[in-house]
């Protein structure tokens, strides 16, 4: 067998030790074999196995990805064409999402001229295309609705659905609470166990795992539209939870009974005044530390 063939056999670990020694006797072969041996000591860089797999999974399942991965070569080109070609179709079918950050309020105009005022730290979503057939939207947080007369208008929340025909009402859906106030017209609220109808001036407060309260309201619109939150005999924990939707603060409470009842209001526009409005009637003090931390204490 010629030397080249033997060399290749050696590269494949198919030679015996004697055969290897014989081959090495040839200086030219020896030189090549040394290079080959040195080369086997090389290593490729580390394979980023997990990261590459994560990218593959994301590329295979582009369902709700809002950002495109840095794609290259054929996939990038194909994706651009696909997006351009299908964007019109997609746009029609996509939901419209509205988000408010802490301390932010905004107004939404729905396709049928209904108006929604969205309170801070809340989320609303609806489908513009479907609006003609069914006026349904989903709410997390708080919003005030001025609904144009027409077909049934439904607000879906975690704890229940609110249905109206043409009216003005407020929906508060946070955590374990659903509170609905009707200012005009008629509102139907369907909870898990029951359906409640509210007329103008009526309101309900539902806490999961607890009772349903029927209340009245003498207001013509919710207070938060005037940048104020008001409470009547509400537990302090609830008041402080609300505060955190209007101000980006971390509240720390030292030795205070959070079940204490509060009647009053606080402004959305000035943290110090807001804190004073809460603390003074309840005999508490507060201190604002850096990094948006507020500590509340009992007055000695």
């Amino acid at each position, binding site marked *: 067998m010629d030397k080249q063939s033997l060399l290749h056999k050696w590269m494949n670990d198919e030679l015996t030790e004697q055969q290897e020694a014989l081959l090495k006797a040839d200086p030219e072969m020896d030189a090549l074999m040394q290079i*080959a041996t040195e*080369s*086997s000591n090389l290593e*490729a860089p580390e394979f980023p196995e997990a990261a*590459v797999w994560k990218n593959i999974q994301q590329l295979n399942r582009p369902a709700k990805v809002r950002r495109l991965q840095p794609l290259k*070569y054929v996939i990038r080109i194909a994706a651009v064409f696909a997006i351009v070609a299908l964007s019109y179709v997609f746009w029609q079918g996509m939901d419209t999402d509205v988000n408010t950050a802490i301390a932010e309020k905004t107004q939404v105009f729905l396709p049928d001229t209904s108006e929604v005022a969205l309170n801070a730290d809340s989320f609303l979503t609806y489908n513009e295309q479907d609006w003609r057939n069914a006026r349904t939207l989903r709410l997390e947080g708080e919003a005030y609705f001025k609904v144009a007369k027409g077909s049934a208008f439904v607000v879906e929340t975690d704890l229940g659905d609110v249905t109206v025909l043409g009216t003005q009402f407020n929906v508060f859906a946070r955590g374990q609470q659903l509170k609905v106030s009707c200012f005009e017209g008629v509102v139907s609220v369907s909870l898990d166990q029951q359906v409640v109808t509210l007329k103008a001036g009526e309101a309900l407060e539902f806490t999961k795992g607890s009772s349903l309260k029927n209340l009245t309201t003498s207001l013509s619109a919710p207070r938060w539209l005037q940048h104020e939150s008001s409470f009547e005999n509400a537990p302090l924990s609830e008041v402080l939870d609300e505060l955190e939707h209007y101000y980006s603060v971390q509240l720390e409470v030292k030795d205070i009974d959070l079940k204490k009842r509060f009647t009053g209001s606080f402004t959305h526009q000035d943290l110090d005044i807001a804190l004073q409005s809460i603390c003074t009637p309840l005999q508490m003090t507060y201190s604002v530390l850096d990094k948006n931390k507020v500590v509340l204490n009992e007055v000695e």
Partner: protein
Amino acid sequence: MTEKDPQDKKDICQEQHYNALYKAHGQALWNFAYYKCGNADDANDLVQEAFVKLWNNCRKVSFSKARSFLYTVTNNSFLNAVAHKKVVLNYRSNQTSGIDKQSPEYLLEEKEYGKKLNAALNTLTEAQRTAFLMNRIDGKKYKEIAEELDISIKAVEKRISQALMGLKKNLEGFNK
């Protein structure tokens, strides 16, 4: 008259089998891509693209053919995109372990040699370099390389011979 490979019962469209293929071939395919293009980012992209193509074609590719599919796709993507880019490779040099002569001069020589070897590898053609490193770093036998590159064993031999000759020529004059 091809006998049915029992592995072909595995449907690639099923996640567990698709995952298994990644575990089995991901590393080697990545090395393959790296030998070709010489940088990790491009290698990542080539591997990702190959596996995505496999997923999209999972109905058409049988389990036993998946490996050659992956290599072919990777090779084609590389040819389409990076063939004209100047390639600068850099391999980590693994110290020859267990050798006692670790004098500073020797270590320096080893490091220098490693650099020279890297530079020499850069002067090979992509075909020569890839076949050579698949044998040397990945430890693949010629038969396997032939299958993955879709060429004959003779062609593998030729590429590796050329690689060795090319390296020798380039390293000539280096005191070893």
